[in-house]
């Protein structure tokens, strides 16, 4: 039993949902109790999807347990097939259904549907979300991948791009960048999967010359299977950062037998010049703490150290599957890696490392806020603001530009820092003044709103607040309190009421509405 306040990853069936939701023409029937549908809103709210995930839940209840939950499951599969007519289905159990031991695979097979039905074994009490995504994608590829390699005969090289899912951190935009690079190299893309792929598309995976694995946590297992089955080579370099992108381009070009030079010519990224420009000098040896999934943490450590000139004082991941790689990278920086899925451990490590910048997930953002440290988000789990409307990849040359801006903005710009040093004793710049993007230390925003003086000089009628009305006002949430105060005083002045009572407060609220 593990005491948990926050978890970096969901259970493995969430990973399966990420694959199902990424794809088209695939339906997932999940044997799960009432309530597990909460997972839908990760996709509809955080990723702002405009359709329900293609998941049917059995949502059994206690009264069903005595009866036949297996029959409920079979009905759900049959009805989902009738309604959605998918090309293929995946079936499995969530943590509770795993305990009641119905056999989703066998039950679904007994229905003899005219489509492939792929059973998933996702051990909910051992494994987690990323593993679930990887396993699901692997099972799908194993069951469906087909096609045969055709001889080159002068045709352009052909590759698959594997890894992007639903609810992936910047997967949408990374894919744009990678596709652009492949296009510029003269390489055609056969299948992108799972994002946007159909089961039929998976059936054509074998046609391609090689595979590009964008997110090893998710697509490595599938890539290895394809390598074994179809003899497809696999490019595993994660193109995050300028050097990694260059390496990626060179590797892809070598595998495809094309010339990388045109893609690498000129200055494809602005990061190198921005990083060399004198304003960036102050970035030298800025202490940075990095935590996230293994792919993004490893990439961030390399970019931070060699492309921005930071000093990496902490590095860690919650992805135990890649702990070895992260430990090795940490050793290069002379530190010990933090491998944990307990955010309290991460918090302790951050405090001990005393960084000046934290690069992490949504949780590290909150930890940094609490500690008053600048922070940027580099990895899932993430909240809604990290599924931005604008194009913001992490990969490729444009991704490197995004990284530079995102990581540097929370820090003070060089000139600003210089001015702070010069005018240290001035009231605007004294030692206790925090960077402008951080909340003022010791002065909470609500108090500041409260302290805003009423424009008494504008109106000669003086209104005063009765003690109980003042107390009632404090019960109004701080972010609307200022407006409520102003509205009430205006209401009182307009009616020449000298004393604001609780009644006046609510009369004004009724009058103005929200």
């Amino acid at each position, binding site marked *: *039993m*593990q*005491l*948990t*306040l*926050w*978890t970096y*990853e*969901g*259970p493995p*069936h*969430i990973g399966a949902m990420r694959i199902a939701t990424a794809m088209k023409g695939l339906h997932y029937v999940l044997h799960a*109790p*009432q*309530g*597990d*549908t*909460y*997972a*839908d*809103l*990760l996709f*509809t*709210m955080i990723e*702002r*999807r*405009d*359709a*329900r995930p293609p998941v*049917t*839940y*059995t*949502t059994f*209840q*206690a009264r*069903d*347990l005595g009866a036949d939950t297996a029959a409920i499951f079979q009905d759900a599969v049959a*009805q989902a097939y009738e*309604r959605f007519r998918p090309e293929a289905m995946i079936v499995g159990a969530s*943590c*509770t259904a795993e*305990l*009641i031991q119905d056999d989703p695979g066998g039950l679904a097979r007994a229905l003899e549907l005219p489509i492939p039905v792929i059973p998933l074994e996702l051990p*909910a*009490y*051992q494994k*987690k979300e990323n593993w679930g995504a990887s396993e699901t994608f692997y099972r799908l590829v194993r069951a469906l991948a087909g096609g045969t390699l055709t001889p080159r005969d002068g045709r352009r090289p052909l590759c698959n791009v594997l890894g992007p899912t639903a609810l992936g951190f910047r997967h949408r935009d990374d894919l744009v960048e990678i596709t652009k690079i492949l296009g510029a190299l003269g390489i055609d893309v056969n299948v992108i999967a799972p994002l946007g792929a159909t089961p039929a598309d998976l059936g054509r995976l074998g046609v391609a010359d090689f595979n590009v694995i964008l997110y090893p946590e998710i697509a490595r297992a599938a890539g290895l299977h394809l390598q074994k089955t179809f003899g497809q080579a696999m490019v595993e370099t994660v193109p995050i950062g300028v050097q990694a992108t260059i390496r990626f381009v060179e590797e892809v070009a070598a595998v495809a037998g094309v010339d990388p030079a045109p893609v690498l010519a000129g200055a494809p990224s602005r990061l190198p010049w921005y990083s060399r420009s004198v304003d960036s000098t102050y970035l030298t040896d800025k202490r940075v703490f990095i935590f996230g999934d293994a792919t993004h943490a490893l990439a961030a450590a390399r970019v931070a150290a060699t492309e921005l000139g930071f000093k990496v004082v902490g590095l860690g991941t919650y992805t135990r599957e890649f702990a070895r790689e992260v430990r090795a990278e940490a050793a290069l920086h002379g530190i010990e890696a933090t491998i944990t899925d307990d955010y309290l451990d991460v918090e302790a490590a951050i405090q001990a490392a005393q960084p000046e910048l934290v690069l992490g997930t949504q949780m590290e953002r*909150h930890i940094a806020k*609490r500690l008053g440290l600048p922070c940027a988000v580099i990895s899932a789990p993430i*909240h809604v603001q990290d599924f931005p409307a604008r194009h913001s990849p992490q990969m490729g040359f444009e991704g490197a530009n995004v990284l530079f801006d995102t990581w540097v903005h929370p820090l003070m710009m060089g000139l600003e820092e210089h001015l702070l040093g010069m005018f240290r004793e001035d009231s605007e710049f004294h030692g206790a003044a925090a960077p402008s993007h951080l909340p003022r230390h010791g002065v909470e925003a609500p108090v500041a709103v409260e302290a805003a003086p009423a424009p008494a000089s504008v109106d000669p009628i003086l209104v005063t607040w009765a003690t109980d009305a003042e107390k*009632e006002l404090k*019960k*109004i949430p701080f972010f609307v309190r200022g407006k409520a105060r102003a509205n009430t005083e205006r209401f009182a002045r307009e009616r020449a009421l000298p004393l604001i009572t609780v*009644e006046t407060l*609510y009369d004004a*609220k*009724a*009058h103005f*509405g*929200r």
Partner: protein
Amino acid sequence: MNAHAPIPTLDAGCDIRHERGQRAVFCGLTGIVWLHRKIQDAFFLVVGSRTCAHLIQSAAGVMIFAEPRFATAILDERDLAGLVDANEELDRVVRRLIERRPDIRLLFLVGSCPSEVIKLDLSRAAQRLSRSFHPDVRVLSYSGSGIETTFTQGEDACLAALVPEMPRAPEIGAPALLVVGALADVVEDQFARLFADLGIAEVAFLPARRAGALPAVGPDTRILLAQPFLTDTARALEARGAERIAAPFPLGSEGTTGWLRAAAEAFGVPAERFERVTAPGRARAAVALDLYRDRLANRRVFFFPDSQLELPLARFLSREMGAELIEVGTPYLHRQHLAPELALLPAGTRVVEGQNLDAQMDRCRAAKPDLTVCGLGLANPLEAEGLATKWSIELLFTPIQGYDQAGDLAELFARPLKRRARLEV
């Protein structure tokens, strides 16, 4: 429109149907998210799986970092191997938790689907732990599992677990009022003032803001439910001698008046005094509601089941705002507690208890409502299909009860319609 109808006891005229199938609802664990804000020295420890922890953090959003008073003890393989081991593990986790948070006075062990299915006896664990932490920490248990509870029923289970802990009220022959159901503090204070003005002196609220301040209960207690989802809590209170006052729920001006009037009548408050005390509130609510009536009148509304608040909300929208009801879904319908509400709904209103999600979505699409009240899993997909939606969870987190929140309540429904009209893109 605002005439006060008498409160009959029959649900005459509503077309009540039952439906079974896939349900898109929260489980009772979600109740923790608002309950822990209300009972300030209580801690909620879910005994469940990673899914449970994931659900709570998804529902709690950013709140999880403001020193939350809830957590999950995640079961792993070793716990599933044998029950004795699981009990020892639970004791270890609780000890660690209480060492970390010595300010906790009341600890709830909250059952989940996995803990219920493996039949981990949390009530015995609670007794055992209560003994070992006596007198500093009281440990209680209830189930918030999805197999047993839907969303707000988690609050019902929690409050019902508190009832045996309430001290026995001395029998003095004079009634005392107990208002049941978690309300926002500001709303609770407003109601306390109104009851005082009505001359009802003995008023207590369940849950209390602090675990040590539980109100007393006994044969003199009259309970007034502030929320429609308190089936088990009411039953437990009645088993301790309390009598329930039948009333509509305090949503909107009419509901608030009906709710207060039921209490006033039970406590023999003269009609003249009732009119005088409630008049300012009713007048203010009338002003506030006028601001939104144009936006909501004659709008056709469809409710998906979520919290059991649907019936009172539908009654408010139809009677006070002039909306038209297409279908009112509710996860569970307590006929007796909801009788005053059913009686106030327009004749023929289609009330659906339970859910078959795909069929209900088909009905919703076919009806093309002007406003659909539904959960966050459905809201964006329905918006994308061209339907205006109001996400229902907000109705649990926003103060909506009482006269002075009536306008806010109407505004919650009017805003999505206003927004749709406003946007030109």
